[in-house]
C-alpha cells in the first residue's frame, strides 16, 4: 500500500520538475529533461491509479504538485508570496479535495 502512495509522491516530484522546466528551460538538454519529467510524472500517477482509487490518487497528486510548485517558485525563483495568495491556493486545494470526496462517496 505504501508502495502505491509512494508512487504518487514520485509523480508529484516529477510534476514539480516539469513545471519548473516549462517556465525556465532554455537549452535542448533542459527541454529534454522536462519532457522526461512529464513522462515520469504521468507514469507514476497512472501506475498508482491502477491500484488506488483514481479520484483520491489524483487529488493527492495535485495537492502535492501544488505545494511543490508553490514552494519551489517562492524559495528557488523568488516568486512573490503573500498570505492572501497562500490562503487562496489552499482554498483551491480544499475545493479539489472536497470535490473528490463527494464524487467518491456517491460511487458507493
Amino acid at each position, binding site marked *: 500500500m505504501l508502495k502505491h502512495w509512494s508512487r504518487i509522491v514520485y509523480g508529484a516530484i516529477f510534476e514539480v520538475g516539469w513545471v*519548473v522546466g*516549462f517556465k525556465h528551460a532554455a537549452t535542448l538538454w533542459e527541454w529534454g529533461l522536462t519532457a522526461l519529467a512529464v513522462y515520469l510524472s504521468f507514469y507514476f500517477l*497512472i501506475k498508482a491509479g491502477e491500484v488506488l482509487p483514481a479520484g483520491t490518487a489524483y487529488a493527492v497528486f495535485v495537492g502535492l504538485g501544488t505545494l511543490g*510548485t508553490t514552494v*519551489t517558485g517562492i524559495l528557488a525563483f523568488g*516568486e512573490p508570496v503573500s498570505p492572501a*495568495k497562500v490562503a487562496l491556493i489552499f*482554498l483551491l486545494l480544499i*475545493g*479539489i479535495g472536497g470535490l473528490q470526496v463527494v464524487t467518491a462517496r456517491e460511487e458507493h
Partner: protein
Amino acid sequence: MAWIFLIIAGLCEMLGVTFMNWALQRRTWPLWLAMVVGYGLSFGFLDLALQTLPMGTAYAIWTGIGAAGGVLTGMLFFGESRNWRKLIWVGVILIAVMGLKLIS
C-alpha cells in the same frame, strides 16, 4: 493574455482528465489517444501561461479548472448525478481562481 491561455489550458486538462478516467475503465487505445491529445494541448497552453505567471498559482488554477470542468462534463454528458454538494465545491474552486486573479 496569460490568464486566457491558462483557462484554455484548464479546459483541455478537463478533457484529458475525462478521457483518463474513461480509459482507466475501458482501456481502449482511442481513449488513451484522446487523453494524450487533450493533455498535449493543455500543456501547450500552460507553457504559454507560465511564461508570465508564477508556477504555484498557474499550476493550482490549471488543475482546479481541470477538476471542476471534469465534474461539470460528467454531469452534463456522462449522466453523473447533479449533486448540489459537487456544485458547491466547484464554486469554491472558481472563487479561489477568481481571487488569485484579483490579487495578481
